[in-house]
C-alpha cells in the first residue's frame, strides 16, 4: 500500500478547502480558527492544514493537504509540500493583485518547484477577467517557469479533477 500526497495552496479564500472537499472521500478536516486580521474579509482562517483523502481500489491512498494561505505560516507550506507528487496553486482573480499573489507562492515553493509538478488554477476569472490567463503565463515566463495556467471554479469537481489530471500528465512527462 502506497501513500501519496497532493498539496493545495493559495490565498485565503481562493478555494483550497472547497477544492479538497470536491474530491475527498471523507469530510475535510480543518484547522480553522477565528480570524483577527481586519484586512481579510473572512470569519475563519486556516492556521494548520486542511486534510482530505482518496483511497484507490488497490489500497493506495492520496492525502490531500490544504495549506494556510498567509505567509506567516510558510513553515507549514514546506512541511506539507515535502514528498508531494503535485502542488496546486489557487489564485483568486477578484483580489487586488492576483499576479503578486501568484508570485508569493512561486517564491514560497521555489525549491519544491524545481522537482514537483505544479499547476495554477485561476478562480473567479469570469467576473474578473483581468489579469488574463496570458498575463499569468507571461509573469511565469519572466520567472523562467512554464507552468499550466487554467481558469477554474473549484466548486465544480470536474475542474479540480482537471487540475489533478494535469499534475499527473506533468509527472508522466518527467519520466521520459
Amino acid at each position: 500500500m502506497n501513500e501519496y500526497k497532493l498539496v493545495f495552496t493559495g490565498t485565503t479564500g481562493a478555494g483550497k478547502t472547497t477544492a479538497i472537499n470536491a474530491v475527498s472521500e471523507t469530510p475535510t478536516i480543518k484547522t480553522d480558527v477565528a480570524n483577527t486580521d481586519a484586512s481579510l474579509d473572512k470569519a475563519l482562517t486556516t492556521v494548520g492544514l486542511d486534510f482530505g483523502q482518496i483511497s484507490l481500489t488497490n489500497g493506495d491512498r492520496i492525502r490531500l493537504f490544504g495549506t494556510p494561505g498567509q505567509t506567516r505560516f510558510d513553515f507549514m507550506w514546506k512541511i506539507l509540500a515535502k514528498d508531494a507528487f503535485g502542488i496546486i496553486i489557487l489564485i483568486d482573480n477578484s483580489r487586488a493583485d492576483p499576479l503578486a499573489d501568484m508570485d508569493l507562492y512561486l517564491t514560497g515553493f521555489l525549491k519544491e518547484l524545481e522537482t514537483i509538478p505544479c499547476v495554477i488554477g485561476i478562480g473567479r476569472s469570469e467576473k474578473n477577467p483581468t489579469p488574463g490567463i496570458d498575463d499569468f503565463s507571461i509573469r511565469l515566463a519572466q520567472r523562467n517557469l512554464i507552468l499550466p495556467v487554467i481558469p477554474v471554479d473549484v466548486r465544480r469537481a470536474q475542474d479540480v479533477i482537471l487540475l489533478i489530471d494535469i499534475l499527473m500528465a506533468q509527472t508522466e512527462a518527467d519520466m521520459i
Partner: protein
Amino acid sequence: MDAKLHLGYMGLIKPEIDLISTILRTSSRLDNHWILVDDGECDAILTYSAEKDFSPLILKPEAPVIMIKRRGEAFSGHAFYKPFRADELIDTLILIESDEQPSLHQKNEAATNHSHTIYRLKKWPPAELLSLHKHYMLLAVYLSRGTKTLHDLTTLSGHSEDFCMQFLSLMNQYHLLDREAGRPKIAPVHLPDVAMPKKNFFSLLRHHLGLDKS
C-alpha cells in the same frame, strides 16, 4: 513572383482566421505568396459551405473552392480538414499555385528530420490556441516539462506524429517554441522500472476520478 495570391475566406471564426493568417505568413514553403482576404478578387476561397455566391469575394475564373470538412468526411475536391493541419493547407495552396504558374514555383521540401529536433515551450500558450483542439492542452503540458522530441510527444500522448507535428507547428507559428537539432536516441524510449508503480497509480487514480485517457 511579384503579386501575392489572394486566399478568400467565408464563415470562419476569429481563431481560425488568425491560425490560417499565421500559416500563410510564416510558412517558409509558401514564402509569403498568399494573403488572406475577406473581399475583392481571390485566387482561391476557403469556406464551410458550397455557395454559388461568395460576395463580397470575387472568385477569379478557374479559381478553386477549398471546402472545410471534418476529418473522415469523403470529398473529392480541394479540402481542408478539421482538426486543421498546417501542412495540409500549405500542400493544397502550393498545388493550386503550381497549377496556376507551374514553372515559377518549386516545392521547397526541406530535408528536415523532425524526429530528432528538440522542442521546448517558451511560455504557456494562450487559451484561444489551446481551445482549437481538445488534446492541445495535454500536449502543452508535456512540452512544458523540459525539452521533448516529436517521438516523446507521440509516446506520451498516444497521438500520431502528424497530429503532434501540427501542434508543434502551431506553437512555432505563434513564437511559443524553442527548437534545436538533437542527437538521435540510440535506444528506443523505455519507461524506467521505478516509474511503473507510479504509472499504475495514475491509472487507478484516473479511473477513480472518472478520467478517460483516450
